[in-house]
């Protein structure tokens, strides 16, 4: 027993002896981690402030890039950053800092109206951007780890999204560039493209609302091939569109496509290894945002079908409208779908009477069913007057949006809600105008079409 003890003791002591004086304790790096970190920050800041025209930032909110990407342009001084974007007309100045809470980090640490848009959440009432109901905002980042920083390119990684965000130096004015990109985003309104990628036939679909591109190669050899199609978030540049990351489809790698406005087509950038030529076509019945604006007569049923005046005005340009005249108390919100070129009205909260939320629900008046699922509603197709018609006669033809399965929305019904509990039909003043429904003003039914006044 003692012997074992002695052996163990010897072994233990030997471990100390042989390990205690390792001589090769040379440092891998010449300087301490802290010194290297602060040097990295100093270098990065020099790079950021060094670009005389500022930077273009390819910004993607959301960990899945669900909203696509947006262009920001920015210029740094030692303490401040001025940010312009394709979304706002003005540039805004705020503070930024280089910090070390997660490796070298660039943080936009006081509010910048342009830059923090995708990070700004909202509750049931509207936030400073007029948005509501987005308690996680668009999950946009405003703190970034600096992966690399050179005069030609800065690569960042969003702290919460993990998205790769690249910045390249600008050669011209930053606000002008942001406007060019905004103009491009407005110019590309076609969503379906057909043509060729390399030597293959291809179809590309752009979801213009969520800024995602779907690329598919046609032809038999790609029919069952996994690599015959690819999808990616994209954003607009001054030339056309750029994908979040290059995608491989068949034997081709696609990163960027140039918009040719005259031909409404997407082509490969000059010098690209892969020749792309895709010609866009509009879906049937597509009409631009502005066509829906103005005064209309709503044809609806109030005992007999009659026309009543409403006005569709701009809410968020290119995205949504307010329909005025339906009620003295509230406006109804409608959205514009850029891809289909149609307008839609969905179930929505129109206000709060102090105790209850007021919801405009969708109603199938024939079946007698009501829903408050906000995906359900009606969509309106713009129909231009037929040639030689006597009256102006543009119309918006409304129909069920197809989400409600076997039921068909043909009416809207106002209810008081407490949380998700339906309390009762609404009462004055939270009702539609009398003209639409003289007796029971909490609904409008027989909603059919709108005729240009």
């Amino acid at each position, binding site marked *: 027993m*003692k*012997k074992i003890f*002695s*052996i163990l*003791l*010897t072994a233990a*002591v*030997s471990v*100390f*002896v042989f390990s*205690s*004086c390792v001589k090769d304790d040379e440092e891998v790096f010449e300087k*301490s*981690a*802290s*010194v290297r*970190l*602060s040097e990295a*920050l100093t270098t990065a800041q020099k790079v950021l402030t060094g670009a005389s025209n500022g930077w273009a930032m390819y910004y993607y909110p959301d960990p899945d890039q669900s909203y696509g990407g947006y262009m920001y342009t920015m210029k740094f001084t*030692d*303490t401040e950053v001025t940010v312009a974007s394709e979304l706002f007309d003005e540039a805004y100045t*705020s*503070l930024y*800092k280089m*910090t*070390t*809470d*997660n490796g070298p980090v660039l*943080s*936009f*640490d*006081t*509010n910048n109206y342009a830059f*923090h848009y995708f*990070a*700004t*959440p*909202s*509750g*049931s*009432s509207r*936030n*400073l951007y007029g948005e509501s109901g987005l*308690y*996680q*905002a668009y*999950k946009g980042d*405003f*703190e970034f780890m600096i992966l690399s920083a050179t005069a030609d390119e800065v690569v960042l990684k969003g*702290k*919460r999204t993990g998205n790769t965000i690249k910045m390249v130096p600008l050669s011209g004015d930053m606000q002008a560039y942001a406007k060019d990109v905004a103009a491009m985003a407005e110019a590309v309104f076609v969503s379906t493209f057909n043509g060729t990628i390399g030597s293959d036939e291809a179809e590309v679909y752009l979801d213009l609302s969520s800024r995602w591109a779907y690329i598919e190669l046609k032809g038999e050899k790609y029919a069952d091939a996994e690599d015959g199609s690819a999808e990616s978030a994209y954003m607009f540049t001054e030339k056309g569109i750029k994908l979040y990351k290059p995608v491989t489809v068949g034997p081709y790698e696609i990163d960027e496509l140039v918009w040719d406005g005259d031909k409404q087509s997407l082509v490969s950038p000059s010098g690209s290894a892969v020749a792309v030529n895709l010609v866009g076509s509009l879906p049937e019945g597509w009409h631009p945002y502005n066509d829906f604006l103005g005064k209309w007569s709503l044809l609806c049923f109030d005992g007999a079908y009659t026309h009543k005046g409403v006005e569709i005005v701009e809410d968020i340009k290119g995205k949504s409208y307010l329909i005025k005249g339906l009620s003295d108390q509230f406006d109804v919100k409608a959205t514009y779908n850029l891809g289909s070129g149609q307008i839609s009205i969905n179930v929505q909260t129109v206000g709060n009477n102090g105790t209850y939320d007021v919801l405009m629900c969708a109603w199938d008046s024939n079946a007698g069913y009501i829903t408050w699922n906000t995906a359900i509603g009606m969509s309106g197709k713009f129909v231009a007057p037929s040639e030689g018609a006597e009256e102006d006669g543009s119309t918006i033809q409304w129909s069920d949006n197809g989400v409600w399965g076997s039921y068909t929305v043909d009416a809207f019904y106002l209810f008081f809600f*407490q*949380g998700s509990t339906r309390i009762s039909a609404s009462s004055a003043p939270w009702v539609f105008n009398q003209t639409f429904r003289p007796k029971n003003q909490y609904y409008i039914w027989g909603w059919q079409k709108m005729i240009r006044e």
Partner: protein
Amino acid sequence: MKKYIYYALVVVLAVTALSSCKEKALDPDSIITVGSKTQNDFDKWLENNYVNPYNILVKYRYEMNESDYNYYTIPADMDCSIILAHLVKYLCIDSYDEVAGVDFTRQYFPKMFFYIGEWEYRNNGTFILGTAEGGKKILLSGVNYIPLVLQGGYQGHTDVSEALNHFYIKTIHHEFTHILNQTKDFPSDFSQVTPTGYVTDSWSTPEYANNFERGFISTYAQHSDREDFAEMMSIYVTNSQETWDNWMTRAGASASLIRTKLDIVKNYMLNTFGIDLDQLRATVLRRQSEVVSGMVDLTSLEIN
């Protein structure tokens, strides 16, 4: 014999072990570096009005480590932060200075404020106005709405001083009460006034909307005795006697419960901290009306 050899070996080895290492000279440079920062005018104002007199740090710039990643939020706007810092100073810090003396404020007032631009929204539609941690830190949210609040009408709050209290200032008094309670606990009689009325997280449900009739000064007061105490104190000092009396009328038979609780709060403040709650209220209300009538410059960064 073998045994001795072993022992001898052990001793030799041990001696070698303990003597073999030479001490290496320490690197004269610390491995920790401190970044240098340039102070802007607001930083200087804060140093002069918060740091030097009270040792209070106002973090108006976003820091990951101070924020709560359960929520999506944004940094505070600097111009809004300047206004809020003036408001907190004028309405809270200076009020306590005036009534309880500067030493009281220095000793108990929270040592750190962290400002964020938006409210912390929950997915059920409610949002957080502020939180206090460990009696030291107060988070104030929704700072970017200050101009709208001061303008009147934000979220239906037309009375500006009521709105300021609702969104920011009451929160500070509320959280400060928690800090005082953590320093010296409130008497247990308080919890016995409406012992069965506390409903924790159900306080916001329609069932408990009639808080006055149930003997509580606010819906949130029904959460727990601790919150009830903080609500009593913060709502009392930020509202006029007239408003309070109206509430007591609404409370009807339960008004006596609220009165009993108020007496306990008043005694606690007087006996523990030497603060006359009515005097504090008079001071707070006077300062409030001075702010609302525009007598206080909320944006000046001049250093006296």
